[in-house]
């Protein structure tokens, strides 16, 4: 009987665990190690952040779902990996520290035959002085990265709305809190939700709303921008985004690295080297992401973290990490199987894998400060990769070590993104976008890097309805309700 241990029960890990349990059946054991008691459909946190949904509507308890699926659930965080075992344990193992199940603080070594690292990002607030400490959000800004953060953001938003109703102007600053952030899409969706809510509350004219981001142009989204079909034209996402901002009266500051956050103001440095201060009454700034800081040890206890993980803390997989300068980057640099090159029984999926390089053009200020988005790994790719990795591991267990590994390259995979403002079925509106492939392939598509038949954008109620459908569909699927396997990632 083999044991597969999955670290992280988020979008990618939950997908990997539930499919592995289904495909392996009772003959083998699937273990999930994750510090959270609840699963969170993160994209809907945006609606929690503007009070349109409650935290309970975007989360559910993991324990009953794992019980139903026959998965061993350990509410704990992984601390380190011993891929060769130790002097006292012949099998590889992961050391975990409990965060619940009445064992908080206790540690345990969990042996494995295969391990899948799906630990997602560390929300690295501490990278910007004043934005927070380590992975803890600070006091001056809000975040929508977790359901709790989003609830707190909504309280702050309501306070601002109250002030505006009393005649006090408010300045809203939304975007990225560091020069090396990703996840611009989430901030993009949040700023338009705020704008929509302020209109609804009748205080839009009392608000100044500004976007701040590390993108070198509006609409980069960490993907180097995209050319998409809009109304019969193939249009750059720059024009598409600028149009959205201008239409809603939202100003923007781009190519910005936030270097310090204080109560009511941020310090920034721009790509042209200029520095300045921007005041705010309400700020939602996404933190940069890093790996969660897992360590790795050899059999003799030596520290082999550098062998297993990249310097940013993400796990090394079958990517081309020595691609060199931007001019040499190719779609084929991106990983296909997500197997660790040193230890064949280790895989990473979702945000936890180390990308070969960024996607956008690397940029820095004349002072040498890097200011460019890091690559997004959104929900759809995270789910697809989680499923492919689970498939590979199941085949390795059931067919033997020479089994063919399943592939899911982000250079051959699309992503759908729906940024929706408002929640009412006829009053909301959304920008629905799909991109194919996520990582541009300029050998196949020399002009845009993408297939413009499948890279498109559209604004309207239709996208808004899709967002509603996705919310219910993905929570239904994650709860393993009847027919869940038929719902695509």
């Amino acid at each position: 009987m083999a044991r597969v241990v999955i670290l992280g029960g988020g979008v990618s890990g939950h997908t990997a665990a539930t499919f592995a349990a289904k495909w392996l059946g009772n003959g083998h054991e699937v273990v999930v190690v994750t510090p959270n008691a609840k699963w969170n459909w993160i994209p809907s946190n945006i609606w929690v952040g503007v009070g349109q949904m409650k935290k309970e509507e975007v989360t559910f308890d993991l324990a009953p779902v794992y019980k139903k699926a026959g998965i061993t659930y350990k509410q704990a965080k992984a601390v380190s990996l011993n891929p060769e075992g130790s002097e006292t344990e012949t099998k590889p193992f992961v050391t975990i520290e409990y965060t619940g199940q009445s064992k908080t603080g206790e540690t345990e070594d969990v042996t494995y035959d295969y391990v899948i690292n799906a630990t997602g990002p560390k929300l690295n607030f501490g990278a910007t002085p004043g934005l927070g400490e380590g992975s803890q959000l600070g006091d001056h800004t809000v975040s929508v990265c977790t359901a709790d953060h989003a609830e707190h953001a909504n309280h702050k938003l309501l306070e601002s709305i109250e002030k505006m109703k009393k005649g006090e102007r408010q300045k809203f600053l939304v975007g990225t809190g560091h020069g090396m952030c990703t996840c611009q899409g989430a901030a993009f969706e949040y700023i338009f939700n705020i704008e929509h809510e302020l209109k609804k509350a009748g205080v839009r004219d009392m608000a100044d709303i500004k976007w701040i981001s590390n993108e070198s142009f509006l609409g980069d989204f960490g993907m180097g921008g995209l050319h998409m079909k809009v109304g019969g034209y193939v249009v750059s996402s720059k024009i598409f985004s600028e149009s959205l901002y201008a239409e809603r009266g939202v100003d923007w500051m781009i190519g910005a690295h936030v270097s310090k956050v204080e109560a009511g103001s941020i310090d920034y440095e721009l790509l042209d080297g200029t520095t300045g201060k921007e005041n705010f009454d309400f700020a939602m700034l996404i933190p940069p992401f890093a790996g969660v800081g897992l360590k790795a040890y050899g059999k003799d206890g030596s520290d082999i973290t550098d062998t297993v993980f990249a310097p940013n803390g993400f796990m090394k997989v079958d990517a081309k990490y020595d691609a060199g300068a931007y001019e040499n980057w190719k779609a084929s640099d991106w990983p296909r199987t997500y197997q660790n090159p040193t230890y064949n029984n280790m895989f990473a999926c979702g945000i936890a894998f180390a990308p070969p390089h960024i996607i956008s053009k690397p940029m820095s200020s004349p002072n040498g400060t890097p200011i460019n988005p890091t690559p997004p790994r959104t929900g759809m790719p995270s789910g697809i990769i989680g499923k492919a990795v689970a498939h590979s591991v199941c085949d390795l267990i059931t067919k033997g070590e020479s089994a063919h590994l399943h592939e899911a390259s982000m250079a051959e995979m699309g992503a759908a993104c729906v940024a929706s403002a408002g929640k009412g079925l006829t009053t909301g509106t959304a920008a629905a976008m799909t991109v194919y492939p996520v990582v541009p392939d300029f050998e196949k598509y020399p002009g845009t890097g993408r297939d413009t038949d499948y890279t498109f954008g559209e604004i309207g109620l239709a996208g808004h309805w899709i967002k509603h459908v996705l919310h219910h569909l993905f929570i239904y699927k994650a709860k393993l309700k009847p027919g869940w396997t038929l719902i695509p990632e």
Partner: protein
Amino acid sequence: MAVKQEELNFSRNEQSETTMLPGSFAKAMRTNVIWQFIRFVVINLKMLVVVSKSH
């Protein structure tokens, strides 16, 4: 005569001056339930193709 919304938006600042803005017809179509239902079906089908190409 009331000033059109796009006149106000284009003139807000230099950033907004060079972009494109939807006129009243484009905006009306965004919330026209019949048209949007058709778009809902079309976008869903297109997304399904993207999903199937990705697996």
